[in-house]
């Protein structure tokens, strides 16, 4: 699994300069030249370093417990990391523009409680409820985006304020206790297995999501604008990019991703609950950072973030298998974040 991802990481960011590749490909099919060129690209180096870290971690985990590092272990870890991975795409694209999305807990929980309350377990109602709750996520993002882009408010505090307001809205909407339960179709999405029970559906969801995410971020004109705004907003706007519009769409994307993550989490637990999204703010932030993105914006790849998220999930899965106290687990978790950030940076 991780091997294939490693290859994906290598082949992914190669393409932004297709003319370069085709020119070189015509002259020689020399693999060494391709590797050399990839190594020259700092961003790819960082992504590769994150995957190297992930592989080292999985190999080392075998020493802790022989059952770790097996295919089923990797399957479990990847399944568990989907929720954070989905949310971290939104967080990552916001961070690319130099902002932060701290409204993720609210933007996950509100769509989740709406889904269970409105669909109330009915698959047919899910047909209109699912688009509605994703749109709610997008709407939350639009509010953030308008605050950040048009009113020029600090992203951290704007999204923090949205999150507070959402906390109140969720309480008012649910009267303190979320009702209903998750429709079967979404439960299947999160827990079901495909191909005769061999592949978890949620991993397929993650694969499709990752492909779409990479396409949007690295192979679309929107993605290129996002990088431009993140690297230098003034230059971007001088070269004709409508920075405000890009910013608003970036936050909308993050809101939709958070809503989708909330929906999947609903499917995983069969119902919604207050505080459903709370752990995912710090997890998504940590995943993006460990994945090698720069918090100052302009640099980062989703494939790196994905590896970062999986690293964190491997660590927490290993930790939850031990009988260490909760306090020690948190301390080790913190040290892993710091070590990973420093290790990935050494590559630069």
């Amino acid at each position: 699994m991780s091997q294939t991802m490693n290859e994906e990481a290598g082949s992914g960011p190669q393409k932004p300069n297709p003319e370069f590749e085709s020119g070189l490909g015509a002259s020689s099919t020399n693999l060494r030249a391709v590797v050399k060129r990839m190594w020259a690209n700092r961003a790819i180096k960082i992504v590769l370093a994150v995957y190297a870290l992930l592989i080292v971690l999985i190999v080392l985990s075998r020493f802790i417990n022989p059952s770790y590092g097996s295919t089923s272990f990797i399957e479990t870890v990847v399944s568990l990391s989907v929720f954070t991975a989905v949310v971290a795409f939104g967080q990552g694209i916001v961070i690319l523009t130099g902002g932060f999305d701290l409204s993720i807990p609210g933007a996950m929980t509100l769509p989740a409680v709406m889904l269970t309350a409105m669909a109330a377990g009915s698959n047919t109602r899910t047909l209109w409820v699912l688009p509605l709750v994703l749109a709610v996520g997008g709407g939350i993002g639009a509010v953030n985006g308008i605050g950040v882009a048009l009113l020029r408010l600090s992203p951290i505090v704007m999204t923090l304020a949205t999150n507070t307001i959402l906390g109140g809205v969720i309480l008012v909407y649910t009267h303190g206790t979320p009702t209903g339960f998750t429709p079967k179709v979404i439960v299947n999405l999160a827990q079901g297995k495909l191909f005769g029970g061999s592949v978890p559906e949620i991993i397929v969801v993650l694969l499709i999501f990752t492909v779409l995410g990479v396409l949007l971020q690295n192979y679309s004109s929107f993605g290129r604008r996002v990088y431009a705004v993140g690297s230098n907003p003034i230059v971007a706007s001088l070269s004709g990019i409508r920075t405000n519009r890009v910013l608003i769409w970036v936050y909308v994307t993050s809101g939709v991703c958070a809503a989708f993550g909330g929906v999947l989490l609903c499917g995983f637990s069969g119902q919604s609950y207050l505080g459903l999204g709370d752990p995912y703010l710090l997890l998504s932030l940590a995943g993006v950072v460990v994945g090698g993105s720069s918090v100052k914006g302009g640099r980062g790849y989703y494939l790196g973030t994905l590896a970062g998220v999986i690293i964190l999930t491997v660590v927490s899965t290993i930790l939850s298998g031990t009988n260490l106290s909760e306090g020690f687990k948190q301390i080790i978790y913190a040290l892993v974040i710091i070590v990973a950030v420093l290790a990935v940076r050494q590559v630069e």
Partner: protein
Amino acid sequence: MSVSPIKRLRHASRGVAGPVLVLITFLVIYAIMQPAFLSSLLITQFLNGSAVIAVAAVGEAVVIIAGGFDLSVGSALSVINVLLAVHMGQSNGSQIFWIVIALVVGGGIGLVNGFLIAILRIPSIVATLATSFFWGGVALLILSQPGGAVSMTFSNWFTGTYAGIPNAFPLLIVTALVWLVIKRTKLGISIYALGGDREAAIANGVKSKSTLLGAYALAGVFYGIAGLFLTAETASGDPNAGGSLLLTIFTAVVLGGVSLSGGRGDASAAIVGALILNSIFDVLYVIGISSFYTSIFTGGVLILALITNVWGAKATERLRGLIRSATTRANDDDTTLGGTSQEIGAR
């Protein structure tokens, strides 16, 4: 030429006057709706209810003025809270000893942040995100579930009254004064310079490493004081005591008029911000609005405060520019008309 005291006062109050006016407005509204507020008991409750956020917000504001962010403030408060609840004894000596320890531990927590940010050059959000996990873990190791207790005398030192005056009042004043003094030292000036324009500050000889270390350590000491207040108020320990306070602390900083991009604002004004926040809660409570809506209002107030901070600063700048150009024009007129008399006076 000496600066006139009025001018000096105006200079010192810059950045504090706005928040203070807002606070007075809210307190007047509250006092009209709830005349009983003007009793020693309710004022004490009001100050005690704001003190934790107020002092912690001063620390957070110091970091923000230096151009950083500190997400670990909640965990820092938790660590100090459980430390005091588990270890502090009943005797006065033990209590004074542990008060000192709380300040030292707070400073140490800040130094760790400063080390990661200044020396290892990890971005402040990432570093303090990690340390917030770390100290959260340490708090759980010290006390795995809510419990422990502190003596009434300790609680009284911080939350009691003396001759009708709530003890929190002088303590908050002292906290504000500590910052107002430090602000004028080399460290304080460096903090403002670094947060305002990092490159320019370094080019002008500001030592960025020691300044950042100093700023985070100072913030940590303020967290230590806030942790003392927290422990005195709850009179027990809770490893998650500070976890939910981050947003409220940020709100207080913004309401205090501190610019989130660094370099501008006054950390002491964060105390005023915390008082404003608490007075809003009280007004909402008196009106009889369900507590479900409290966080909606808090978020709304936060956005409004941000808008006023950002756009208000621009408006004042423009207004100041207009006044300046108007006065220089007036002065020009003065010199042409009354110039001779001045020249005569000078001779």
